């Protein structure tokens, strides 16, 4: 509890000590944290692998962008809209995907992620999506005359939603739904025998997971002020999966570690080598997996366990 409070305090101080550009980067990290939390529910807690969450990220982003651009909806109102659209999209996609397991689901979701940019470019949809050009958005100012610049305001706006989403996730995961998700991952036949409606839980998980990712997509679109089909290629989905695994599967805090990783490690790699930044990034990935196969959250958990055991041993000694 104290740790959470300290982290929150630090997060609130952050925009006043770093540059606007850094603030913007941290805003994006928060956005990714929401998306990773969603994917982690599906992959980490429910055991379904998705290589296509970039698609839901894109749907969320386009929902926000189209609503703002075409219908003049205020930016904050697009978030719940993106949530609802993605919840439904994810649930519907989850229904047929239920028949697919493991690799087959991975392929199906992969296909979704690959086809979506093509669909966004499709010329019959151009009047809404803006085709290849995409949609340019305006950055919102701070309301109520708050003494914040737009980057700072957007950071706090995102932070508030992030906290809300984490609290919600925490409640879902420790409740009936969360237990059902884990039961299905570990022993799906036994789970069914115990009366868990497997199909319903799996589809719902898919829906909730997509909703989280969609909200992140909407926030990301507002922060970057631009959406275009090519910024939502398969790479986004792969980065999300990388973030979940590096952060730590089946762990709420893992979403934050993973988000920081996928937001900042590419920059670090770029600073190390301009010629082949992704090779450096790949080496970082290898290093993290070799040292922490259970993700950063797993490593932290083990370190904490070791420390408390040591402390107990010390206390036990006279």
């Amino acid at each position, binding site marked *: 509890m104290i740790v959470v409070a300290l982290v929150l305090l630090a997060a609130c101080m952050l925009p006043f000590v770093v540059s606007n550009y850094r603030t913007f980067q941290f805003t994006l990290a928060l956005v990714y944290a929401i998306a990773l939390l969603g994917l982690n529910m599906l992959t980490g807690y429910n055991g379904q692998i998705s290589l296509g969450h970039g698609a839901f990220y894109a749907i969320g982003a386009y929902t926000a962008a189209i609503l703002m651009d075409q219908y003049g909806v205020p930016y904050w109102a697009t978030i719940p809209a993106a949530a609802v659209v993605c919840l439904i999209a994810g649930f519907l996609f989850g229904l*047929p995907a239920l028949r697919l397991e493991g690799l087959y689901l991975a*392929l199906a979701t992969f296909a979704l992620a*690959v086809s979506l940019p*093509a669909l966004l470019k499709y010329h019959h949809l151009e009047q809404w999506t803006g085709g290849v050009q995409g949609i340019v958005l305006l950055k919102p100012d701070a309301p109520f005359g708050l003494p914040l610049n737009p980057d700072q305001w957007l950071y706090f706006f995102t932070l508030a939603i992030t906290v809300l989403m984490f609290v919600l996730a925490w409640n879902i995961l420790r409740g009936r739904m969360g237990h059902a998700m884990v039961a299905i991952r570990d022993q799906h036949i036994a789970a069914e025998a115990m009366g868990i409606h497997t199909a319903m839980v799996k589809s719902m998980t898919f829906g909730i997971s997509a909703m989280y990712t969609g909200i992140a997509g909407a926030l990301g679109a507002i922060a970057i002020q631009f959406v275009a089909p090519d910024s939502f290629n398969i790479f986004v989905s792969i980065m999300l999966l990388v973030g979940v*695994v590096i952060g730590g599967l089946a762990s709420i805090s893992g979403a934050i570690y993973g988000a920081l990783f996928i937001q900042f490690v590419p920059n670090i790699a770029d600073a190390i080598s301009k010629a082949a930044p992704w090779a450096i990034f790949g080496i970082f990935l290898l290093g993290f997996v070799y040292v922490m196969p*259970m993700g950063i959250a797993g490593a932290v958990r083990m370190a904490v366990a070791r420390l408390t055991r040591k402390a107990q041993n010390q206390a036990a000694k006279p």
Partner: protein
Amino acid sequence: MQELLHQVLAGLATGGIYASLALALVMIYQATHLVNFAQGEMAMFATYLAWSLINAGMPYWPAFLLTVVLAFVLGVVIERVIIRPVENAPVLAVVVVFIALLVILNSVTGWIYSYTIKSFPSPFPAEPIFGQYVTSHQGGAIGVTLVVLLLLFLFFRYTPLGLAMRAAAQNPDSARLVGIRVGWMLALGWGLAAAVGGVAGMMVAPIVFLDPNMMGGVLLYAFAAALVGGIDNPAGAVFGGFLVGVLENLLGAFVIGNELKLAVALVLIIGVLVVKPSGFFGKVLVTRV
């Protein structure tokens, strides 16, 4: 009608390439129950090696053979050095290692050779030699694919080493008890898969041109092919490869054009999988409770 025949034959040519790569995926899947997402980039890298050899003045076929050998060595080294340390790690951690391998190979290739598109020679003459419906390269690619498939079949079916590799893949514990060095069999499997992938790369490069991202789409089709045929069935994967190749070509030519070809082909494949979840020839998984 002629156009249809032409498109089917063209589909078989690319299908053969998908089949080879799908087979490479299946070989590694059977031994490890993992899909090597870096298989395409490994093939791409091997194709660049071939390009270097040919540009250095080596005739095509010696360069081809040397590339196959180099790809094999590359596969063995990658397994020993990069995959070995995560042998017992969680599945998704290994997937991330594959992704890392993918971006490293892609990035290093781009760094060495630049991202500009290069043309890659075909060993087959420009004028048609297999009749009017198919270009020489398409006919030749089908031929090369069939030779590779035949060689693999003979190797696995009739040599002691092939038998040992099959044994190690399906029952590692028992394999060790009869004295098979399972770790090395795995490395050999990676080597063979990389070699087969290298052939696929060299056959596809004259069609799609050489660039570090050339195998992305090919790998996806190969993955789909392997799943449609049944990921644990080599013959099924080959069939799936040809099927996906023909399907892709016909859809592109007659139904929807090239813009949405990839998306529609994938949606169709997933449709198949929803109806037949373990592919056409895959074993239905029965779980014991």
